[in-house]
């Protein structure tokens, strides 16, 4: 089950936990990325990593805090550069804009390079309904499209698939002999995708950064497919979200020092494209190729205006928090039921989708903070999880029994006499359960729960210290 619905989170967690082979695959893949990341940081990054993070953090902070300013700046630059620009309030607006463009270009065949925002929008399903033929050209995305699944990771969409699974998938869908050799599989895919590129009417891509000072679109990739998507068809549509803006080119370069390292451990990706303006076709400036940029809001501007929540939008979508998250490592990305899985998904999704249906994501964390520690732009991810929990209680989404428990709990801890009375009773009974431990519903199915000790520290203090003027007898 790979449904896109966060309501099933708890159920999916259990299901994915029992899938031991999934666990092995995810653990291996995330471990590999983390190891490469750490090696690169140690060996190849000349600046101090923490200083670099600090710089990146302040770039993102300044951008988001002054988002209106940079948004207007980039709009002006786009129009100066001959790039068409749309702001889309929500997913359906994106779909409509794309649909109109495709109709006006009489397009049929569309190639896409990786874009999580189009996943958020549900663009492929929408376009296919209208009879367009959409092909994902990033190898991972292509695999996912063949399998009719969703990405399970924001930078490695097919991370949950083993080599042999991919082998069987290719053999079934592409009618070839089974092989699990990565080079061979890549070769098959390449042959098919080359044809798709040559026949494509329109290319759709995402973007990693949009530079306000110059109107430059920055796209990072490893396979060269994005470059073909950008350059071959007559129309290139860029679909991304409103927070991707950075003030200057040198800011973008700093973020570029952190992004690939955090994602895959590469110092830099094989390709980085900087697109400023539409290219001239056959050297005549009349026959320009067209570039259209669509920026999706979908609730983000509300986050921007909230001082405590806006750091969520500092994200540069590197995926490191997923790799590092001990929960993600155990359950993989599909369990979350959200477009964006893992820690960043858990803090972003409730604000973009139905809060009530996705708030549980924020409870599926031990708050260990490994995500915040690895995040290249220093997002306070585990604090954001706590803020979602807080909001959830304020909105009265909590179970009734839990509310009662905390009401009673408060009455106890507010009054140390009651607290000590109860604590003494518990400790008095403790020795009865020393061997077996306490039987706590659900917990005891998996773990032993200790019994209280025969006396509390309060009691000990009272007995041994408080009554003594001096500490003499201790």
């Amino acid at each position: 089950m790979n449904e896109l619905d966060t309501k099933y989170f708890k159920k999916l967690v259990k299901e994915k936990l029992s899938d031991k082979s999934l666990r092995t695959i995810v653990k291996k893949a995330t471990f590999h990325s983390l190891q490469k990341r750490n090696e690169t940081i140690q060996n190849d990054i000349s600046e101090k990593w923490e200083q670099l993070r600090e710089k990146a953090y302040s770039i993102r902070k300044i951008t988001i805090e002054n988002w209106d300013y940079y948004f207007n700046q980039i709009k002006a630059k786009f129009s100066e550069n001959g790039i068409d620009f749309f702001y889309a309030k929500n997913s359906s607006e994106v779909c409509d804009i794309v649909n109109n463009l495709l109709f006006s270009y009489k397009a049929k065949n569309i190639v896409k390079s990786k874009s999580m925002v189009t996943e958020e929008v549900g663009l492929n399903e929408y376009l296919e309904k209208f009879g367009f033929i959409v092909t994902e050209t990033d190898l991972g995305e292509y695999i996912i499209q063949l399998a009719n699944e969703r990405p399970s990771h924001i930078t490695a969409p097919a991370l949950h698939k083993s080599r042999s699974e991919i082998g069987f998938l290719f053999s079934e869908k592409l009618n070839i002999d089974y092989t699990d050799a990565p080079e061979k599989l890549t070769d098959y895919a390449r042959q098919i995708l080359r044809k798709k590129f040559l026949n494509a009417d329109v290319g759709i891509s995402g973007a990693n950064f949009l530079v306000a000072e110059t109107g430059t679109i920055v796209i990072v990739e490893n396979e060269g497919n994005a470059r073909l998507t950008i350059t071959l068809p007559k129309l290139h549509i860029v679909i991304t979200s409103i927070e991707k803006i950075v003030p200057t080119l040198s800011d973008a370069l700093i973020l570029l020092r952190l992004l690939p390292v955090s994602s895959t451990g590469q110092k830099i990706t094989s390709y980085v494209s900087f697109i400023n303006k539409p290219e001239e076709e056959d050297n005549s400036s009349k026959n320009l190729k067209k570039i259209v940029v669509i920026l999706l809001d979908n609730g983000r501007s509300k986050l921007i205006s909230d001082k405590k929540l806006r750091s969520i939008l500092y994200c540069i979508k590197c995926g490191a928090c997923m790799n590092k998250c001990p929960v993600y490592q155990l359950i993989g990305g599909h369990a979350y039921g959200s477009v964006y899985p893992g820690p960043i998904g858990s803090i972003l999704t409730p604000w973009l989708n139905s809060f009530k249906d996705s708030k549980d994501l924020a409870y599926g964390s031990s708050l260990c903070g490994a995500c915040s520690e690895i995040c290249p732009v220093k997002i306070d991810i585990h604090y954001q999880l706590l803020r979602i929990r807080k909001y959830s209680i304020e909105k009265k989404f909590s179970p009734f029994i839990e509310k009662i428990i905390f009401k009673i709990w408060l009455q106890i801890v507010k009054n140390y006499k009651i607290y000590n009375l109860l604590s003494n009773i518990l400790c008095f009974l403790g020795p009865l359960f020393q061997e077996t431990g306490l039987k706590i519903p659900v917990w005891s199915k998996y773990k032993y729960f200790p019994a209280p000790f025969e006396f509390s520290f309060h009691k000990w203090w009272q007995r041994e210290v408080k009554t003594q003027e001096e500490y003499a007898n201790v």
Partner: protein
Amino acid sequence: MKISLFIPCIVDQFAPQTAISTFKVLRKLGCDVDYPFEQTCCGQPAFNTGYHHEAKICAERFLKIFSKSNYIVAPSGSCVAMVKNFYEELDLSKETLSIYQYLKNNIFEFSDFLVNILKIENINAQFNAKVTYHDSCHLLRELKISNEPRKLIQNIKGIELINLNESDTCCGFGGTFSVKFPELSAAMTEEKVNNIEKSGADYVIANDVSCLLNIQGILKKRNSRIKILHIAELLALGM
């Protein structure tokens, strides 16, 4: 040096030995130790579950009780982090906010206090055993304490400190998390215990009773011979 002990509620009832050891070690090092008797809980359980209203009442109560303290020392990274860092999130009243501004710089986790304030790295203890050390999340990431406990452990005569693979990965407790997602929590603890067993140590040491009891939850299920031991108890051995 005058210090006030802050004993988290879970230590109070489930591991008073840890608190007693903390007290004894600090006394041995010449501290004048006081235990503000009205203390109960810092509010973390409510806070982590999202009940900020309840947590705030607890926090303000806590701050008032400790308002006269010079130093506060607790045998827990998690509860110190709650007071020191997470109270910031609680929208405290003006009156308690000023106490907080003062106290947040004067509250210390036990090993941090020993090494960085008292400047003690060797307390002349002896223990012949193989031990390994688990980094508790909030101690490591909120308080940035990782070398201090290791130094203290290594300086114990007769001890062998074995490296724990993935020592900084969460043990899976997470308070409310372990109740709301028991399978997930247990799966994380299983991974942690696998690494502990592979280390070949006889004892797993940590600075937080909650992590230790959680780890013990799986050790006992497996009938493992490995024992849990809080760092304060380790340092107090033989005292």
